[in-house]
């Protein structure tokens, strides 16, 4: 509902001369205050998340040499004499897995979205949409279990490698996880292109495919880019599946068959064994701050890009 309509409604109430301050009036005002407080809760929680993880992790950030942390690959946080906190290998692990996942997911989800939005019709379309939605509902721990118990032996057998928990495994799992979400966002973006664009092009004698390539895709470009970005954010922040399918060993991967460890998985695996307030504990929260900032930037740019298309 547009807000001009709402505020005109308010103006009508303000304009009449009766004194309306009976019980209903007070209830109305009280509710207004209450829903306002609940309304800003999302903002409060976002600020709260940042505040509380910073509160636990800031001491580490202040005392550490950041160049060293981002450029060394030695992660030995619990070494008693000389703990090392290099996260380069963890970043490489997250990047390699997310990169492969996107290489898998982007073509399939965009192809899937085009098929569902532009080619499929009627029942087929409905069924496909429901299937994609159900796909998106599978919990990440179940995906991790699939990586562990189905993909792992499959990779060992197919490629004749000693370990099947590696970049390839986690990348495929993560790609399958991200694809349905990207498909449905991309499909929304395609559906947002007004039908009159398609009709105009078809009236000029264009085939369905020409309409898609020349008219629909350019018009939906920003929305599709937003879908890809949200997929990247999703893959980047995924925890349980990555923890279970990467092999979880600190490594800068040289091939698809190397085991790696991701930033998110490191927190999940180690937080339970650290003492509250210890350097290791603070380091994990510092990684959390890093993850928060990166995903914040990804989500913000996805939002700006998608909004750009609506205003343009």
């Amino acid at each position, binding site marked *: 509902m547009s807000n001009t309509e709402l505020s005109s*409604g308010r103006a009508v109430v303000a304009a009449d001369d009766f004194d309306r301050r009976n019980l209903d009036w007070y209830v109305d005002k009280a509710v207004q205050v209450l*829903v306002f407080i609940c309304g800003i809760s999302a903002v409060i929680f976002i600020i709260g998340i940042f505040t509380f993880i910073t509160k636990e992790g800031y001491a580490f950030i202040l005392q550490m040499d950041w160049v060293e942390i981002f450029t060394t690959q030695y992660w030995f946080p619990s070494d008693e004499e000389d703990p090392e906190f290099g996260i380069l290998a963890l970043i490489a692990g997250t990047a390699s897995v997310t990169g492969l996942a996107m290489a898998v997911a982007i073509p399939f989800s965009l192809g899937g979205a085009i098929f569902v939005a532009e080619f499929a019709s009627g029942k087929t379309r409905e069924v496909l949409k429901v299937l994609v939605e159900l796909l998106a509902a599978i919990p990440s721990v179940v995906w991790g279990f699939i990586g562990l118990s189905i993909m792992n032996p499959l990779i060992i057998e197919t490629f004749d490698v000693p370990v099947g928990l590696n970049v390839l495994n986690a990348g495929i799992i993560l790609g399958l996880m991200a694809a349905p979400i990207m498909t449905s966002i991309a499909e929304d973006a395609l559906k947002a292109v007004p039908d009159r664009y398609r009709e105009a092009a078809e009236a000029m004698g264009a085939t369905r495919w020409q309409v*898609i390539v020349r008219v629909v895709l350019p018009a939906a470009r920003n929305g599709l880019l937003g879908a890809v970005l949200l997929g990247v954010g999703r893959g980047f922040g995924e925890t349980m599946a990555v923890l279970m399918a990467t092999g979880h060993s600190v490594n800068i991967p040289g091939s698809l068959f190397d085991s790696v460890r991701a930033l998110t998985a490191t927190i999940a695996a180690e937080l339970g064994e650290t003492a509250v307030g210890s350097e290791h504990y603070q380091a994990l929260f510092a990684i959390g701050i890093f993850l928060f900032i990166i995903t914040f930037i990804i989500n913000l740019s996805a939002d700006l890009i998608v909004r750009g298309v609506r205003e343009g």
Partner: protein
Amino acid sequence: MFEATALNARNARIQTLFRLLFGLMTGLLILPVIIILFTLIQEGGAVISYDFLFTSPTDGMTAGGIFPALIGTIWLVAVALIISVPLGVAAAIYLSEYAPENWLTRAINLAIINLAGVPSIVHALFGVGAFVLFFNFGTSILAASLTLAVMALPVVIVATRESLQAVPLAFREACWNMGATRWQTIRRVVLPNAVSGILTGVILEVSRTTGETAPIMFTGAVFFTPFLPQSVFDQTMAMSLHLFVVSTQVPGVPEQLPYGVALVLIAMVLTMNSLSIAFRMYLRSRKKW
């Protein structure tokens, strides 16, 4: 006059080709899941029995059932719902019915998007820092459910806002013209017309929350406890964490057991999700305006 030229024929061929290609891609997108579901049912189906569902794990979690984890998940999800549904619905009412178009509303919308996008492990860190330590709830159902509630809040807000905005403005105007206050209008006209849409969103939230693992690992769910939770201040087992534990942390678990746990978990999640989808379709089919 309307004979197909070589160009027309070529265009038609290209179109058929791409249609086939994209159809194939869509199929490949869905195929793995069908294989996976089939494998889970095949391997896990044998494990599931009355005893599996209704007894505790025994022999260091290498045998026995999943009862405490099932009950624990119900506790966690229920408490998370009690917290997030009223908060989310009220927030959606504000956004749909009151919010002016200003920087604050934009900030709220941005916060909702980000709340949905923050990695689940960061939500877990927040839960530890805020609910477990700062508010001193300890590792308990309360702390874990609060963490889940914050995480699920965007789902409730977005679903509710959509169904509130689907109620035509004319309904509200008719009510205002009768002299009703804004709240009376919302309570008597807008909410009754939107309640089923809200319910769809709530079921979806149940499905999401059931499967979450990372946010509850350090805030309230534990690997093993022989006791069923008695209050929100107890720790508990949970289905999602139990799947992680039996498939990675415990040596000597029979190969089939984790399949059984995964099958029960995925059955819970997909049932809820299908329910939500079916409900939504039913609503759409009997829409009155």
